[in-house]
């Protein structure tokens, strides 16, 4: 019978750098990267939708603070935001005594918070743009039906804004995947972290960095195709009819 594990070990036997041990590092890195990116995107999206609605408010005192948040988080490098949260978390009074400390001592959660706040800022602006671009006629039609503001938001504005935001949001997802590479700077063992570790062990830059570059490339293409598929399904009414 064909034994997968023997095959795997024989395949890597004569190789000095791609050993089962380094493969385990890359796998661990892939898991960390996926967790970080997926969690921050989900939480960021959940935060961004209400923020985008508030940001589109005509009342200045509601929209201005949210604009300030998105301006600061979009205008400064993610690395700075990560450093501020990673080094700054100890300054919250009493956090070192609280039950949360074991959670925050690890670099994972500060990184997750930084990534989430960053992607939420970008996503808020993407959705705001989509909400603003709602066709006047749709809003007038909703008003003519006697819909209240909240019903109109729920039934008319948000569903069509989601669809309009899709291409830009796909770019944001890819951007987040690439931005997550800086997690390795604060000692996290993500994909880039694994490559840096292998590099420091064997002092060969090409194998580890080209290998993870290839993995990132595959992930990017997977995201790209997923969003293209979604666009095809959800934006079918906008594509030119095939003759």
């Amino acid at each position, binding site marked *: 019978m064909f034994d997968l594990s023997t095959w795997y070990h024989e395949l890597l036997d004569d190789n000095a750098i791609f050993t089962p041990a380094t493969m385990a590092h890359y796998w661990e890195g892939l898991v960390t990267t996926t967790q970080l990116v997926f969690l921050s995107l989900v939480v960021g999206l959940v935060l961004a939708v209400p923020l985008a609605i508030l940001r589109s408010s005509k009342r200045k005192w509601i929209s201005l603070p949210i604009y300030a948040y998105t301006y600061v988080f979009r*205008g400064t490098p993610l690395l700075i935001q990560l450093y501020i949260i990673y080094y700054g978390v100890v300054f919250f009074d009493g956090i070192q005594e609280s039950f949360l400390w074991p959670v925050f001592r690890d670099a994972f959660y500060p990184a997750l918070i930084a990534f989430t706040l960053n992607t939420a800022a970008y996503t808020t602006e993407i959705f705001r743009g989509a909400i603003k671009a709602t066709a006047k006629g749709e809003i007038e039609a909703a008003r003519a039906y006697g819909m209240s503001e909240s019903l109109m938001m729920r039934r008319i504005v948000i569903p069509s804004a989601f669809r309009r935001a899709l291409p830009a949001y796909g770019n944001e997802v890819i951007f987040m995947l690439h931005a997550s590479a800086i997690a390795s700077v604060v000692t996290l063992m993500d994909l880039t972290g694994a*490559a*840096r570790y292998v590099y420091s062990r064997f002092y060969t830059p090409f194998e580890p960095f080209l290998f993870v570059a290839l993995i990132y490339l595959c992930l990017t293409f997977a995201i790209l195709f997923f969003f293209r598929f979604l666009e095809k399904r959800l934006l079918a009414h906008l594509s030119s009819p095939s003759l």
Partner: protein
Amino acid sequence: MLDLQGYGPRLFEGALVTVELAALSLGLAIILGLITATAKMSRSWLLRRVAGVYTTLIRGVPDLVLMMLLFYGGQIGVNAISDVLLYDYDIDIYISFNAFAAGVLTIGFIFGAYMGETFRGAFMAVDAGQIEAGKAYGMGSALLFRRVRFPQMMRHALPGLSNNWMVLLKTTALVSVIGLTDMVRVAAEASRATHEPFVFLIPVAVAYLLIASVTEWIFARLQKRYDIGFGEH
């Protein structure tokens, strides 16, 4: 008052490094972008293919990974070349591949791909009548590029160029990871040494916002200049 605990001058030097790096990378990115856009619109299948692979690969891999590949791999590559020169041709030179060069090359190379897309769209948006008019005046292709296609293209390219620049500026922060002493690295070192991260990191964040605002104003001025003759937008 803000007490930088003696790190003030070093932070300022770091800020200069950031600005220099960003400006040089932008220059390289614009040149590469123009070349890529030209290749993408060329009649040669091979050129179009090479430009396509370049933009796809660059946009699929994180900047930091490319930067590390170039920085750590670059020195080995340079050493290999100088070894060949020494043993085969008896020329003894030592080229040190420093972090600044690696930073400019990687960032320029990455954003060249983005600029290529921006410029291609902008070149295609230039009214064909303008080019025909230039040809009718007997302009050669170089003169036509300088006097008609480039200025006309810039009008369409500036919004995208400005966006790319804002992303590029923030990307420069990554060079601190490969050992270049820009303002982010100074601030991170100072935070670790003094255990006061906010004192150093927040002013650096503000500095980025400041640079972004100043350059945004410059881009708005440029847009106005290139829009001359097209009425108000």
